[in-house]
Structure formats: C-alpha cells, structure tokens
C-alpha cells in the first residue's frame, strides 16, 4: 500500500475544518495490541490517529448504519474497492443516502500478509464513484479464478462434503460475530432472534448450527460482495467465505448479476427474467 497516510490526514483535516462532515471514519493503529482498528476522527486534532497500511482489513461500511454514527450527521469514510461495493448495496436497500457520505476511496493492491484470498481475484482495486481518491490507479491482474476455492471444494463427493461441513459446523459456538461484522446484516431483529416460531434452534448443536449457517449464507444471496470479514473474525475458523462464494457463483451464472456494482441495481430475488430463467430440474 503506497504511503497515503499523510495524504489521508490532510484530506480529513481539511474536511473537518470546513465542517463538510461530522466525522471521518478511517483506520488507525489504536487497538489495544497496537493492531489496526476503526478510528472516528471528529475534530481536526484527532486526525493524527489515522493511518493506512497493509493491515486495513476491516470493512468500515458496517458502522454507517449504527444509530450512534448517524447522530454525527454527514460522515466521510475511507473505503477500499470491496468496501465501496458494500456501500452500493446499502444505498440500494435504502439504508443510507449517497448525499450523506463523503467517500474517500483508496487504491488498494490487496491487504493482509500473505494477501487475503479475496484480494487475489479482486477486480475493484480502484474504487469507483468516490468524492476523493487517494493513490494512483492500480493495475493488477487477478491471480486466480474468482471461484477457484469453490471449484476445488466441489471436487469432493457428496458424503465427503457433508462430513467436512459437519466437522466445521459442529464447532460453531453461535457467537454471531460473523453477523456483527457484516455490513449487510443490519436487521433490527434477525430471524435467529425470533422465537415465535423458533425457526433456528439457538443451542449450538449441529442441527441448530446447520440451520443458522445455511440461513445466514442464503440471506446474503445476491447481496454479499465477498469482503471476507465474516470468515476472518470467526473464532472457530469456519470457512464461511466458501459458502458466500458458492452463492455469488450461482447468482452470477444463473442470473448474470454481480452485487454492489451500482447503486440502482435490482437484487436477483426481487426480479425475474423470462428470457434467462429456466425450468431445469423441475418435473
């Protein structure tokens, strides 16, 4: 990541001085162990906490929907390419308005050392439609196919797959960290928390976990932009990204739809296309 920290701080300071925004949401090494966490700079002085480097994993879009951030009025947000697509989905689902955001896009060659899997096939190194863009455009060819992992997994036969998932899902402790970190899981009351009727059993045995993980993945169909945060934060290391990628693949092949590309796109499950849809597999 080129050294844009200084550039970011000047931009943030200028925005705050002009009162164009109430807060600048960015990255900074303010974590307890010095790791990279979210920084909310509200006054020009706090701008010094901002920093940019290879560890900017988080998807800061998750904070946009929080009531506490809403109260601060218009806000500026530092986004990588994947985060920018998440903002598009939020706009499309009427959660935030484009005018309430000052988007500071940073051109990103990929985060994490070694590079996170999502960055290896990323196609949005340069975030589109931003108010300010820091860093010169990046031109990197994807190193592997978007669905390489999915295709690798699908080489297993049906029982091997079940055994793999049974082992993984058995460990799920239902901490719901994956839900908390995902910018698109903003429901006030998630289906898990409804108990009349209790579709998803709350105890963390295999049956409940299967229901929870399947429904979490299915509710992101045609919305998830593959930012990989859910997999990163899962304390027990369940490969949630794999489920998400499978659904992204299905939506791309069957409905020629890629989520987050524009703010006025229509989700695959709220429309239909008599030309595209087929009756395969239906008696």
């Amino acid at each position, binding site marked *: 990541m080129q050294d844009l920290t200084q550039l970011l701080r000047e931009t943030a300071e200028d925005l705050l001085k002009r009162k164009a925004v109430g807060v600048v949401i960015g990255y900074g090494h303010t974590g307890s162990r010095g790791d990279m966490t979210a920084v909310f700079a509200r006054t020009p002085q706090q701008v010094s906490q901002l920093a940019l480097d290879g560890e900017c994993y988080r998807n800061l879009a998750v904070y946009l929907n929080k009531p506490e951030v809403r109260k601060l009025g218009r806000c500026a947000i530092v986004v990588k390419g994947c985060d920018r697509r998440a903002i598009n989905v939020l706009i499309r*689902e*009427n959660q935030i308005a484009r005018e309430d955001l000052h988007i500071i896009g940073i051109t990103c060659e990929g985060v994490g050392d070694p590079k996170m899997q999502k960055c290896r096939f990323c196609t949005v190194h340069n975030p589109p439609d931003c108010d300010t863009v820091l860093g010169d455009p990046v031109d990197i060819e994807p190193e592997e196919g978007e669905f390489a992992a999915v295709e690798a997994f699908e080489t297993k036969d049906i029982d091997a797959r079940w055994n793999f998932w049974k082992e993984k899902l058995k460990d799920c402790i239902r901490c719901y960290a994956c839900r908390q970190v995902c910018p698109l899981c*903003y*429901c*006030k*009351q*998630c289906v898990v928390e*409804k108990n009349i*009727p209790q*579709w998803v059993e709350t105890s963390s045995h295999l049956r409940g976990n299967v229901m929870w993980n399947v429904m979490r993945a299915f509710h992101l169909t045609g919305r998830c932009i593959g930012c990989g945060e859910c997999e990163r934060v899962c304390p027990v290391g369940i490969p949630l990204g794999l489920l998400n990628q499978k659904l992204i693949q299905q939506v791309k092949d069957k409905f020629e739809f890629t989520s987050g590309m524009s703010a006025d796109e229509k989700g695959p499950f709220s429309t239909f296309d008599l030309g595209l849809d087929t009756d395969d597999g239906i008696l």
Partner: protein
Amino acid sequence: MPTLTVNRQEIEVADGATVLDAAKACGLEIPTLCHHRGVPSAGACRICVVEATSRGRTRLIASCAYPAEEGLVVQTESERIKRSRKMTLELLLARCPESERIQEMARELGVDTPRFKTENRNQKCIMCGLCVRVCNQVIGVGAVCFSGRGQTREVVTPYKELSDVCIGCGACAVVCPTGCIDPAEFRDKLLERIPNEFNCGFDSRRSIYVPFPQAVPNKPVIDRENCIHFRTGGCGACAQICPAGAIDYEAEDEFTEEKVGAIVVTTGYQLYNPAAYEEYGYGRYPDVVTSLEFERMVSASGPTGGNVYRPSTFEYDDDGKIVGGEKPMVCVFVKCVGSREEVKHKPYCSNICCMYTAKHTMLYEHKVHDGQAFVFYMDVRAPGKNYEQFVRRVAKEKTATYIRGRVAKIFPRNGKMVVWGADTLSGNQVEIDADLVVLAAAVVPSSGAVDLAQKLRIGYDEHEFFNEAHPKLRPVETNTAGIFLAGACQAPRDIPETVAQASGAAAKALGLVVRDEYEREPIVACVDENTCNACFNCEPVCAYGAIGEKEIRDRKGNLVKIVAEVNPGLCQGCGACAVTCRSNSIEVEGFTDAELYAEIDALVP
C-alpha cells in the same frame, strides 16, 4: 362565398365552386363529356362552353373548370354557344363515328352526319383524359397516361402492355364517357377478390363493408389492407359519396381503459379445422364443406341467398357475388369429425352436432326437394327437451337415411365426391357418389383463448376451454374473483344452455357490483412495524403493487422512521413478500410462519 348571375339569375355558391356548379344550382343543364364529379376537371372537350363576361370582355369559357368569380355574368344559352357545341360534336362524330354517346349527343343538337372526312380510326376515344386523370390524381397509381401530341396523341399504358402497377380497380372504365375501356382488358387484375369472411369466403366483399347483417354496431368498416386509399393515398370515393361525411381516414384505433367491477368472459367457440382429417379432403375439394359453411348457404342472407349449390359450380358476377350454381342431388352429412377421438383429435363430444345435423337434413330436403341425404353417425345424442322427438321426426319424414358408421375416405371421381364408409349395423362397406359432403366438425374454443386466460389470470384445460371454479358448485365463476364465464368458451354447449349460464353469470356479476362494500377472503399480508428495516425488498416482488411507504412520526410530528405498509384492498395474499423479507417482518394472515411451522412440525412426527 362568391355571387354571380347565371341567365340573369343571381346565385351565391360556395368557395371553390365552378360555373357548372352554379348553373346546376340554378337548375340549368349543361352537357359535359370530360367532366366527372369525382375527378379534377380539365376543360378539354369544350362541350360545356358558356358565355362569360368579366372586366368587360365576353368570351366562351369551359364552365366545368372556370371558377365562379364574384360578379361574373354567365349566359348558358346563345347562338354562339349552340354553334360551338354543334361544331365540337360534329368534329367528335367525325373522329369517333361508332360512339353511341357521341351520336346521341349529336342528334340532340341536330347534328347527324359530319361534313368532314371521317377518320379511318373507328375507336370511340374522344381524348377527354378522364381515365388518365382518375388513375393519376384520384387513385394515385398512374398506370395509364397520354403519349404523343396533336393527331398522334393517344391514351396508352407503358409499352402498350398491361401495366404492372394497375391494381384493376376499374375506375377508368367507370369514368370513361364513351365506354371505350373494357374491364375485360384487365380481367386477371380485377381487384383481387376479397373473400367475405362471414360467408366463409364463398363470395367477395368490398374494402368498405358491413361485416354481417346483424353486426353491432350495424355500420360499415374499412379494411385498411385492401382499401386503395391506404395502399396508394388516392381514391377517397367513399368519403365523397357519404352524405353524412362520416369517413375520416386519419382516425386511429384508441385504447380506452375502464375500471370495472366484474368481467363475464363469453368468447364462444369456432369449428375444428377438418383439414386435420387428410382423408376427408377438406380444403382440397371445394364440394367438401363444414357444417358452418352449409349453414351460411341455407341462410337467406347468405352468399347464395338460401339456395344450396355445389361450391365447385358457383357462378360469379363482376362484383364477385354468386348468381348461380348446380343443386346437389345427393348430400352426405358426416358427424363427429374431430369429436370423440382421443388419439389424434378431440376426445370430448361436441354436444351440438347431432341436433344441428338433424336440422340440416330437414333444411336440405326443403331446399332440394328430390335430393337424397345420408348421415354417417356413431350415436344420435338428443338429450335436451323435445330433442329426441325432433330427431324421431327426421326418421319419420325420411328426410335422410341414417347410416351407423364412420367415413373412411372421400375422393373425387368423374365429377362426384365418392364417400367410402362402413355400416356397422349391416356389417358391410358403403360407397356413395355424393354431390356435396357436409362435415360436422368438432367445437373448439375461439383462437386466442389462452392469451386471454393468461391476461385475466384464469385457468384453462388442455383443450383450452376455461376452467370454472368448481364443476358442480360454482360453474359460472372462475378462480379469480370478479371474473365469470358463460357459453361455449367453458365447454361445448348449445344455445339454451348458453343462455341459462349467461343469465347465471350476469346475476353473479350484478351481485358483486351492486353492493358498495365487498367481502373478501381475509388472507392479507401485514407488516410488523417494529422489525421492518425499510429495505423495501418486498415492494418489487408484489405483483399487485400493494406495498407502499408509511411514515412513523412522534407526537411532535417529526419523522421517526419509514416502514413498509400493505394496502389490504389490493393484496391478494400470495405471500411472495413474506419470503423475500429476511427479517420476516411481513406475514400473510392464514399462512403465518407460526401456523406453517406447526403444520410441518405436526406432519413429520
């Protein structure tokens, strides 16, 4: 509105009127040759000359073309005019001695033998140019024109061959004053016969026509495909002739939208195309007709005026109307053509064929007294009131010989239609040389029934008849509220049953629309405003547009949040919204998650 004096009589005429119009308005007769009401005038033959004085100069003018100017003084009778007309006629007589029209006009003015050397050409054309003008300026085709000038001037088609742009409208033959254009010249081009659909194409109709005698509204329509005006921009004869000025070529179809409370679908039936029976030869042999075509023939308002002729012997007049034909002495009626046949055609019985075939045999006997009718049948089904007695009468009065058996093949042989069939009662083959074969084809729903059904969202069966809500309990309703059925569109039925069903449907429909309130099924969606995230994923999924926005405001009126809201009047309770809502904030009464959870739980103990 210029005023002028004609023979010392003041007359006011409309703008654009000619001196001839003014004279006619005064009741004066002026002879004309190259003038026709529907064709722009040229003032060429000079027979209509009158004396006109304007700005102090009196001279002979062609009244047919000279516009009626303000203050013009016209004299239609004078020695000078008489001399001029006599000389014109004498010269025309010298040119066309054979033309009766010119001889007649000449005799009227006292000219019998021309003093001039008669031209050796004996044609009747007086070069008036009417045919050229009507073809070029009125019809707009331009198939005929002048060529050469002076004595060598003649009316020709290009290269003197039948012009390929000629559409055979015959306008030139109609306007020619001396009748020297014979329609036979363009016989094969005679305006392609437009088959009259209502008379099953037996005779032809014009491109402006009343579809059928009992049409509602009983007014003519224009067939844009064949009408010359729409093909070439010319003609317009109907607009000129229509006294009420009712013809407007620019009128376009309009789509009007009506908000209605109920719809009664009565799209009726049509006959199954018997051409599917290759072996019967319908469509290949003109003497094999369907029962509907036979019905049109026996009808007094039909193409043959009620007489039964063999279609292969129809005689047409120039106008495409049937004026004669040969009466069929032997007529064979074949029943169940396409009905009661599971393998290739329709498995159901068409209900009405037995009764109308019996009627047809009586009509045939009435129209062709010494004719002989045969009927091939599988069963005679006469279930209605007095139906069986009616069929018994046919047997008693021997109007037809009923043969129980199917027909195998029909083919022409030296002028007759040979019918091969079986007689199951006697067990042997039957061969009849018939003059006419009438096929009682099966009843099928009108074409386009399926499109309508999908548009109205009502069900239909595999034969495309519409599905009633319940065969026994709700026969006149459909599953879709507010849409009712009547008549043969629901199943083959005859007139008494149709009328009964129509009355039922009308009553049901009225029952719906007269009350101002309207009960309906309670299955309606409703939103849990606490958990709704206002993502409005549900809104595009609702096919009835029943989901809208609702603003939640606190007591002081400032906006707290926006949530989704369902309009119970529109919602049909399909539940699609309940599924797309990830937080299950929207539920359908009667199919709530809790109820379905309980059902699933109970079903798999």
